[in-house]
């Protein structure tokens, strides 16, 4: 798994590639915590190269969502692969995030 972060104004852009399994989710969570400060209003995740997401990866997304949603912010997931999209759907999370 690789993750790149870019913060501009209130927008945190993240590009995640590869498999987001339990171990790599821990790495991602640590990086998210580093970057997700109070100035961030929106988070956009480029998922075009995300091939797999585990429950731990879903927890990372929920952590981001729960941090920014109460402040009126949004979590946007872009270019989901069908596999990742299906996981989000069956857990009920697809209706929480903006999916583009």
């Amino acid at each position, binding site marked *: 798994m690789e993750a790149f972060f870019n913060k501009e104004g209130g927008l945190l852009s993240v590009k995640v590639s590869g498999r987001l399994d339990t171990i790599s989710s821990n790495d991602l969570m640590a990086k998210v915590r580093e970057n997700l400060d109070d100035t961030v209003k929106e988070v956009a995740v480029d998922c075009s190269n995300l091939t797999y997401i585990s429950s731990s990866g879903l927890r990372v997304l*929920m952590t981001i969502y729960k941090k920014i949603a109460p402040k009126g912010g949004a979590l946007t997931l872009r270019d989901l692969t069908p596999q990742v999209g299906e996981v989000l*759907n069956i857990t*009920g999370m697809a209706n929480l995030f903006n999916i*583009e």
Partner: protein
Amino acid sequence: MTAMDLKEYGLDLHCTMILEEYRELLPTFRKMEKIVKKELGKLVGKAGLLISGLETRIKAEDSLAGKLELKGSKYRTISDLTDIVGARVITFYSEEVDKIASLVDSAFEVDWNESVDKRKQHALDSFGYDSLHYICRIPKSLCEDSSMPELNNLRFEIQMRTALQHVWATINHDTGYKSGIEVPKEYLRNLNRIAGMLELADEQFSLIRSSINDYRRKINNLVENGKFEEVELDGDSFRRYLELDPFERLTHKIALINQAEIQKTSSLPYLKVMKGLGFRTLADVEKLKNEYEDDAYQLALSQLGGTDIDIIVSSVALQDLLTVYILRNGGGEKGLAMLYSETGGSSPYNDVRARQVFKKASSLPFMKREPEEQP
């Protein structure tokens, strides 16, 4: 400091002495202002009242000199002037003026001989839309300072008014009218008309609020007593209904498929979908829950079973119920795409998602039963 040091206002000796007292007591007035502002803020916050504004000020020296020039002989000493320190609490609703007044009464020593309810002073043919004015002292129990012996003796004024009263008073003040000065009748008539209109508007705002509160109370009672057929489905009623955790059982059943953790999320976004599907009352939601629970579980089992996903959100239960409802009633992929766009916003991905779900659900037993009647 002597009268000679004072800025020249052309006042007589008596008024100049009062002005001198004012200067000497300025530190005390500043402390009074600070205490009053803090205490009022605390009282309003504790009572959970939503107010439009809280202002405090110390009368400026120029303004005091002007007042003394006009009616200085009325006052013996500075302590006869009760508005050197002034506070104003501006509420949204007229009944909250009385609530604030009661809080002020509990926190400060109110001088009832000087306090006036200007709201009740107007005769039928007079004009004005005024506020409630309390003249108060800071009680020793609130603050005592041996270096400022006058802190608890000097009085201050608290004005309590609605936002509309405030607008009227501010504009009236801005026009320069002072009581006792002859003003053209047309001017009085116009102010009178506006005052009446604002008073009516304040009454209407209060009425609207109390009607909404009555409605909410009624909804609460009906929901608590399970009279769902009498409760129209809307934001208030659905929110109240959700407090009963109606989908808890299904959520837990779904979670048990993989011993999943449940993350609490709101099901409110599904209200729009249900309204769009023609649900009219909470009884329709209850019917959805009771009649489709097994099918929704079957759908969740087909999706989650065989995976190792051990996290779901609580709103998945209603999502699955509505998915089944749409499919059972012939909504197909299009209906599902509508469900997703109403809850998650429009996206080309909604069609992909609808196709995936439809395909998987097509083989489930509930899809093979005859369509049912819609609520």
